[in-house]
């Protein structure tokens, strides 16, 4: 079984980890086209080569990022997501933007 080197917990058997999918850049949901959104949601490059992806170390609940070759399964690097996600993400308001009124239920 493969060993994955968790940036927090060190090398562990891959069975301790959950794959979280490839890192994908989300188009602006309020301003992209339907087609762009469908591309984001359903389509994927799925090529043979190095991809950047999410992994979760399940026992510690820790998400991190790995660069892995999808042909050889070799993991070239793992690191904390803060290397990529450096600041708070904001979403732009919707075009018609009448700020949300509470609905009661």
């Amino acid at each position, binding site marked *: 079984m493969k060993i994955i080197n968790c940036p927090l917990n060190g090398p562990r058997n891959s069975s301790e980890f*959950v794959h979280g999918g490839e890192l994908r850049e989300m188009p602006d949901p309020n301003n992209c086209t339907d087609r762009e959104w*469908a591309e984001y949601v359903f*389509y994927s*490059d*799925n090529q043979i080569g190095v991809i950047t992806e999410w992994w979760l170390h399940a026992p510690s609940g820790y998400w991190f990022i790995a660069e892995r070759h*999808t042909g050889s399964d070799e993991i070239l690097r793992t690191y904390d997501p803060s290397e990529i996600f450096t600041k708070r993400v904001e979403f732009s308001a919707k075009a018609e933007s009448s700020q949300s009124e509470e609905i009661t239920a």
Partner: protein
Amino acid sequence: MPFSLLKYGLNKDYPFEQNADLPAPSALKSHYDVVIIGGGGHGVATAYYLAKYHGITNVAVLEKGYLGGGNTARNTAVIRSNYLTSEGVKFYSESVKLFQGLSNEFDFNIMYSRRGQLTLAHSDAAVRGFRQRTEVNKHFGGKTELIDPQQIRELVPTLNMNPADQPVLAGLWHIDGATARHDAVAWGYAKGATQRGVELHQLTEVTGVTVEQGKVTGVETNRGKVSCGCVVQAVAGMSSVVAAMAGIRMPITTYPLQAMVTQPVKPFLDPLVSSPALHCYVQQTGRGELVFGGGSDPYPLYSTRSTMDLKESLLAHAVELFPFMANMRLMRQWGGLTDMTSDYSPIMGLSPVDNYYLDAGWGTWGFKSTPICGKTMAELVATGKVPELIEPFAMSRFDTFRQVNEMGATAASH
């Protein structure tokens, strides 16, 4: 003894080379009307039906390895039509029908074997899903019943009815469930296609696709360039990679799927038995081995290596289902590359590139569709019109969020 055997036995010169199933290698021509990328079951079936029904024989099937060496060689050969959606059931039922006549059509025994498939429900949710599948199947004329534990016991007396403390509550008994010699299906189609003039080129890898003004005009291979009128891509696990050569991005992720086989023992298990909840299914082949399959690998990869964790969990559950199997010996484990879509339905039909046709997204379940897929894809190529049966499976369904969701009917049953 069948007469055909006498014929071989009495003839000194058997086999007769001119009677070979597959012709010897030949040179690549510079042009074909149709190039089919991928010499798996789907590729050769498409070629066969093009030649047989549409008289199109200037066709080359290009296979980078050996004939049927992709998933066609690796699948556990479960043939069934007990799907969930109307679109799915209609489509797969046609395939099951075609399968039944293939041996005689090919003059080549594919050993189609109708054993029935029993899928086990261990939760109310599964019972609900099975009832729905039973009803949808019956609606389209299929032979499927929801059966109770007593009937299950009669059908498979050796089954543990409380495996892993997950009691068997009901079974989906699919009388049409069957299996066949998977390799023979590819060989039979290849034989029929090449006899009609189709060229099969093994060890011929497509390395590029030429697209001019939005239209495909040829392919590059490790043996040189070939021009063509149209291309059918049927490369299973490699779908995204080959499509990218034509500039097409697909809603597909490639995952390994593994299977394994034991040493042969005397036959004791007729039906195909599957427990989606325990991620395990099993059948006994005509040679007496048990073939096991289970869930897909947990992350995308282009490698057919075998892993131990899958084997451990799958066989642990196998022994739960059939405790006496603890005494069997595993002989071999292998893997294939499956092209998974998010709705567990295939992608067939047109692509964004003109004259470039897609046959992909077969994931873990596409062996059973080989005949009907070949037939409908051939019709599409020959007529330029998308046959009704495959219309719902167009890739463009993802752009409009109109998936054909077969998730519940596919997991760990193939």
